[in-house]
Structures are given as structure tokens and as C-alpha cells.
């Protein structure tokens, strides 16, 4: 049953993305930026999906510290890994967009820097987990680190409001004058990314279960 649900979600995500690629290709080029502006339909949804993953990781980490139930730890690590992939896609698309519009691949403005720091923090979280052998200690240290890392998430989101940045103000859901069908395309891409993220997280959760089984088998093997 779980497999079928995941399959349906995955196929829906892919169908939505394929439909959106066709729809977005049919949109006219933006007057000032030209075709490169269309990268926004990917750049923004992956960023939002990454931030949602960070929020889910925070919830998983807090719940682990409260309940000591390892399923929450598994959720936190799974969703963090998926979020890291989304954030990497966001940073790369942003950099390529910046190269065309600003003439530079990177600038140390508040939004870009805080997003990079966010990526490094969550990558650090995954590295920290690899460095600790004992499962309870690994989950506890990981949960505390993940909560600490989440401090950067509101800074990433609100940096363009709090500081004057080279990164523009929000175009979608921020007072920009975007046509209705462009909003819909962005919203559907966000939905597709969320569905894709749910599928990836579920698959990753199973790997965590398999990893726990492997750890238990290793203990049994050593006990002989």
C-alpha cells in the first residue's frame, strides 16, 4: 500500500513537472531579463521546498529530544538530506541567473551568504552524524545541532527584508506584478517539488530502517 502511494505521488510530481515545462516554455520572455527569468519557476520552488524540509527537520529533532523515539531522528536526517539537495539546486540556479543578470557568479550579500551558510550547516549536521558511532549519542547530538542550524532559516527567508541586498525582493507572494498564470505555474512547480520531496524522504526513511536493522545484525554477529 505504502509503495503504491509513493508511486502515485512520484508519478503525479513528474507529470506536474512535465506539464509545467511545456506551459513555462510557452510563456513570453520577461521584458527586461529575457528567457533567463524563467529559471525562477525552478529557483523559487526548490528554495521553498528546502525551507519546508528544514522546518520538518526541526520538528523531527525537537520530537526526538522530547520522546527519544528513533523514528523522529530518522525523519530529521532523511528530510535534511533531501532539503540539502533542494538547496544545492537553488544555489546553483541562483548563481547561473546572477551570472546573466549581474554579470557575476556570486556576491557575498545577505541572502546568498545566509543560504550558503544554511547549506553548510546542514551538510555539517550530516557529517557530524557520520562521525558518531553510538546511535543514541548520534541522534541526540544531531537533534541539538539541527535545532541550532534552523536559526539560519528565518535569516535566509527575511534577509531580503532586513538588509539591502543585491538579491531582489520576492517576486511571487511578495507584492510583485506577476500574471496569474505565472503564479499558477510557480505554485504547481512548488507542489511538484513537495511531492517529489515526500517521495525521496519516504525512500530515505526506509534506508534508515534498513540501517538500523544492519546495526542490530552487526551487534548479533559480534555477540557470537
Amino acid at each position, binding site marked *: 500500500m505504502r509503495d503504491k502511494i509513493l508511486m502515485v505521488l512520484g508519478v503525479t510530481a513528474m507529470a506536474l513537472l512535465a506539464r509545467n515545462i511545456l506551459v513555462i516554455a510557452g510563456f513570453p520572455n520577461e521584458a527586461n531579463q*529575457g528567457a533567463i527569468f524563467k529559471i525562477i519557476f525552478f529557483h523559487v520552488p526548490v528554495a521553498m521546498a528546502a525551507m519546508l524540509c528544514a522546518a520538518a527537520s526541526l520538528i523531527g529533532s525537537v520530537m526526538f529530544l522530547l520522546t527519544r523515539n528513533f523514528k523522529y531522528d530518522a525523519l530529521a536526517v532523511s528530510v535534511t538530506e533531501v532539503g540539502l539537495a533542494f538547496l*544545492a539546486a537553488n544555489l546553483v540556479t541562483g548563481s547561473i541567473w546572477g551570472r546573466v543578470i549581474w554579470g557575476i557568479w556570486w556576491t557575498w550579500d545577505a541572502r546568498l551568504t545566509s543560504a550558503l551558510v544554511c547549506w553548510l550547516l546542514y551538510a555539517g549536521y550530516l557529517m557530524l552524524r557520520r562521525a558518531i558511532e553510538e546511535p543514541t549519542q548520534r541522534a541526540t547530538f544531531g537533534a541539538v545541532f539541527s535545532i541550532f542550524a534552523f536559526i539560519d532559516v528565518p535569516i535566509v527567508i527575511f534577509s531580503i527584508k532586513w538588509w539591502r541586498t543585491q538579491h531582489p525582493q520576492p517576486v511571487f507572494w511578495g507584492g510583485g506584478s506577476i500574471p496569474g498564470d505565472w503564479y499558477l505555474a510557480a505554485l504547481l512547480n512548488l507542489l511538484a517539488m513537495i511531492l517529489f520531496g515526500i517521495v525521496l524522504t519516504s525512500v530515505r526513511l526506509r534506508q534508515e530502517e534498513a540501517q538500523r536493522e*544492519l546495526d542490530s545484525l552487526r551487534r548479533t554477529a559480534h555477540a557470537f
Partner: protein
Amino acid sequence: MSPDQIVREAQRLQHNYEFLSYGLTAAWLILVGYVLMMVSRHHKLQREIASLRAMIEDRPAR
């Protein structure tokens, strides 16, 4: 519009499309790469579990 301006505009459009394709390709490569990494990790875990199970089942028989 002068012919020079038309050429420049065409070049700008071409440049834009080129970078749009780079951006989308790079982003998809990251996501597809992550999926492939996950598939390879899944196979590795299954292999290790199967070999440990076989080892544990064999031991008491000795």
C-alpha cells in the same frame, strides 16, 4: 531598430537561453545524482544485510 541592435538583441536572447539551459540542467543533475546515490546506497544496504544474515545463520551449524 538598426541591424546592429537586432544582432545584439539576438545574441542576448541566445546567451539567455544558453544560461537557462545550463541552470535547469545543473539543477536536474543535482537531483538525479541524489536519487542515483540513494539507489546505490539501497543496494549496498541490502547486500550487507543479506551477507550478515547468511553469516549469522551459518555460525550455529559449525
